[in-house]
C-alpha cells in the first residue's frame, strides 16, 4: 500500500470514529428517556385503595420525602415528611392518630402542627386529591 493511501485510510477512519463518538452520545441524548420527568409541583402518592383509613405512607416529592395520611375518618392529608427539628423522616402513628418522629420524639397533629417534643415549627403541608384512581399531592 502506498504511503499516501495509508495516510488517507488512517485519517478517514480516525475522522469516522471521532465523528461516531460525537454523534452517538448526541443521538442518544435527544431521545427522551422512558422515565418521566420528575414533576416538581405535584407528585403521585400511589393508589387510594392502597391507603386504608387510619394509615400513612412515605412517598417521594421531588428529592424530598412526603407523608400521605388517610385519617380514621377517611380524609387525605399530605405533608413534608421532614421533621422540623433535625430533618429525620416522620411517620404516622395509627395508635395515637398523630405524626411522630422516631429520632427525638417530635409529635405533630394531623394538621402538621408541632404539639410535643423538640420540633420548633409545624410540618410543611401539601394538598392531596384523588384523580383517576391516583392520589396526587400538590404544593400549596
Amino acid at each position, binding site marked *: 500500500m502506498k504511503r499516501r493511501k495509508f495516510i488517507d485510510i488512517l485519517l478517514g477512519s480516525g475522522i469516522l470514529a471521532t465523528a461516531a*463518538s460525537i454523534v452517538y452520545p448526541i443521538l442518544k*441524548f435527544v431521545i427522551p428517556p422512558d422515565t418521566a420527568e420528575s414533576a416538581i409541583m405535584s407528585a403521585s402518592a400511589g393508589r387510594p385503595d392502597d391507603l386504608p383509613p387510619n394509615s400513612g405512607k412515605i412517598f417521594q416529592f421531588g428529592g424530598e420525602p412526603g407523608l400521605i395520611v388517610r385519617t380514621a375518618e377517611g380524609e387525605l392529608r399530605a405533608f413534608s415528611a421532614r421533621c422540623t427539628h433535625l430533618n429525620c423522616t416522620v411517620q404516622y402513628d395509627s395508635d395515637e392518630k398523630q405524626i411522630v418522629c422516631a*429520632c427525638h420524639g417530635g409529635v405533630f397533629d394531623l394538621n402538621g402542627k408541632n404539639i410535643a417534643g423538640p420540633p420548633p415549627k409545624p410540618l410543611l403541608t401539601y394538598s392531596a386529591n384523588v384523580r383517576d384512581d391516583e392520589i396526587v399531592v400538590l404544593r400549596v
Partner: protein
Amino acid sequence: MAFEQQHSPPLRGGESLLQRFRDKTIPIHRHTIWYYFGGMTLFLFAVQVVTGILLLLYYRPTAESAFESVQFIMAEVSFGWLIRSIHSWSANLMILTLFIHMASVYLTRAYRRPREATWISGVGLLVVVLGFGFSGYLLPWNKLAFFATQVGTQIVGSVPIVGSFLLKFLRGGGNVTGATITRFYAFHVAILPATATALLALHLLLVQLYGMSTPPDYKAGRTMRFFPNFLLRDIVGWLVALGVLAALAAIFPWDLGVKADPFAPAPKGIRPEWFFVWMFQTLKIVPAHVWIFEGERVAILGFGLLLVLIAAVPLLEACSSSVRPSASGWFTMLGWILLLYVFVMTLSGYLETPVFASTLQVAAPDELFRSDIHNQRGITCGDCHKDNPQPEKREVAALCARCHSDLNYMRRFNPQMRVDQFAEYQTSVHGMRNARGDENVATCTSCHSVHDIRRVRDPRSPVYPTQIASTCAKCHSDTKRMAAYKIPANQFDKYRRSVHATALLDRHDLAAPSCNNCHGNHGARPPGVDSVASVCGQCHRQEKDLFGKSPHAQPFQDLGLAGCVVCHENHEIRKTDDRMLSTEGIGVCSACHSDDASVMKIRSMQSSILKLRLDIDTASETLERAERAGMEISKTKFNLEQVHAELVKARVSVHAFSPEKIAELTNPAMTMTAAAHKNADRALEEVAFRRRGLGYALIAIAVTIIGLLLKIREIESR
C-alpha cells in the same frame, strides 16, 4: 516581544473575501503558537453552542424546576451527564483560552493600527463571554450559585447612579428569585448569543481583512498557507481540546450541588466563578471609604474604567508613542502588572480560609443596668430598693414576686407572661431551704443575675438554654457547698459528657435538654423514681409508650427501679449504641439477664438490627464510591435514607423487647437496602462504562490527530 505592524493591503478590485481567505498566508516565527488560541476559543464557543442547544431540550428555567430538570438531565437522560459536563467544562476552558488569547495579543502589541477595531471587538467579546459565565452559573439553581449571584448582583447594585436600576433589572425584582432565573435564561440563550454572533462575525471579518501581525525579527518569506496547512494544525489543537474535554467530563463530571434555598443561611466560603475571584478579592481589600466616597463604589468604578482603558489601549498607545516613543514599553509593563495582580488575587481567593466573626460583646460593669430588661421597660432603682436598699438573699424572691406574681401588673408588659414562678419556687428544694433561712441556696438573682437581667431568649442571659447547665454548675459543681447537702458535685461533668450536652452545647440544638428540662426551673427538684420515664418521655414518647407496655414495666415498678435510668444513666446519658442491646461487653442486659432463653431473645433482637445496619453501611459505602465518581444517585440515596428511618424505628422498638416486632421492621428494610445496593452497583458499572467510552473516544481522536499530522507532513513535502 514587540511586533512589527504588518499592514494588509486593502481588497484589490475584483478580489473577493473568499479569494483573500484562500490566498491567506500565516507568518512562521517563534511566537506563531499564540495564533492558535483565537481559533481554540472559537472551537470551544462552537462546543458551547452545540451542547447548549442540546441542553435546551430538557432544561426548565423556573425556580421550582430548574434544579430538578438539570438533575433529570444528569441522572435520567442518556449521556445527559456528558453533555452537561462538556458544556460546563468547555465554558471554563473557553474563558481560559480567551484570557490567553487576549494577553498574547496585548503583550505582542497586535492591537496596533490597523487592528484597533479587531481589538475593540475582542474586548466586547470578552464582556459577552463573562456575561455568559455569570448568567449560566445561576441556571442550575443550586445553593452556591444562588448566593454567588446574590453577591454578584449586589455588587452591580453599587454602581453609582444606575446601580439600583441595574440591580432590579438583573434580578427581575428586589431579590434573587425565580424571576432572576427567567431573566438570566433570556440573557444566556437569546440576548448574549445574538450579541456574540454579531461581534464574532465582525471580529473574524476584521481578522481576515487585516491578516496576522508579525514580530520585528520576522524574516519575510517564511510563511505557511492558511488553508490547508494552518487550518489542519488548528484542527489538531481542537481535537486535543476535545480529548481533554471528554476526559474531564468523564472523570470529573460537573457537580450539581444542593438545590438553592432562599431561606437557608449562606454556606461558608461562597465565592464567584474563578474568573471573577480577583474582583471579589479586590472588593474585600478596598477600605470602607476612599476619601469621601464609599470604597465599594470606587472599586466598581475602577473596574469599569479599567475595561474602558483596556478597550482604548490602541488609541492611548498611539497617542503617547507619537509624543514619546519609549511610552509603548510602559504599556507592556502595565499589562504584566495587571496579569500578575489578577493571578495573585485569584490565588489568594482560593487560599484564604473563610472567617465568620461572631463575637458577643459583653457590657462593661457600669453599663449593666442599661442592658437590663427592667431598665428597658422603664423600671428604676427605686422601684425595687426604695423600701429595702439592700435586701437579704432570703428576701430576694419575695421582692421579685411583688411584681412577678401580680397578674394585673405583669399584664401591662406581656399578657401571656407567667405569674406563678414564686409559687413554684416555694415548692422547690431551693425555695423550701431558703424559707428556712438557708443563705446558700439559689434564689432568683442566683440564676437570672442581679442588675443585668435579660430576657430568657437572649443568648447572653444566664438562663438561655445553652447557659443553664453552667449557671446551675456555679453551685452544683462546688464540692464544699454540695458536701453540706450530701449531693455529689459531678453532675455537670457527667452531663457535659452526655449526648444531650453534645447536642445542646456543641451543636446548638436548642431543643436538647438541660438541667431544667428534667428538674424543672423555678420548682427545681429531682424527679422521683416513678416519674423518671414520664420525664424522659417528654421527648422520647415512643420509647416511653413501648416500655410502658413491655414485660419490663411491672417488674421495674415492683423492684423500685427508675425506668430509663437503669440502662441509660441519668446525667451521663451516652449516645446509644447497638452493642448496648447485649449481655456482653457494654451490653446493659447482663445486669438482670443470664438465662439461655433471655440471652437468645436479646441476641435475636441485636442481630436483626446489626444486620440491617451492616447492610445499610455496605450499600452507603458503594453509593458513596459512585457519588465520588460523579454519578447522580439522588434517588437511590433517598431510598436509603428511608431505610435508615426504618432502622431508627427498629431501634426505638427495642423498648418493646419483642424480637418479632423488630424483625417486622428490619425484614422489609433489608429488602429495600438490597435494592439500593443493586442500584449503587449499577452506578459503578456505569462509571466503568464511561471510562471505557472515554478510552474509545480518545483512541479515535488520537488516530485522527496522527493521521492529520502525517497529512500535514505529506502536504508540506510535496
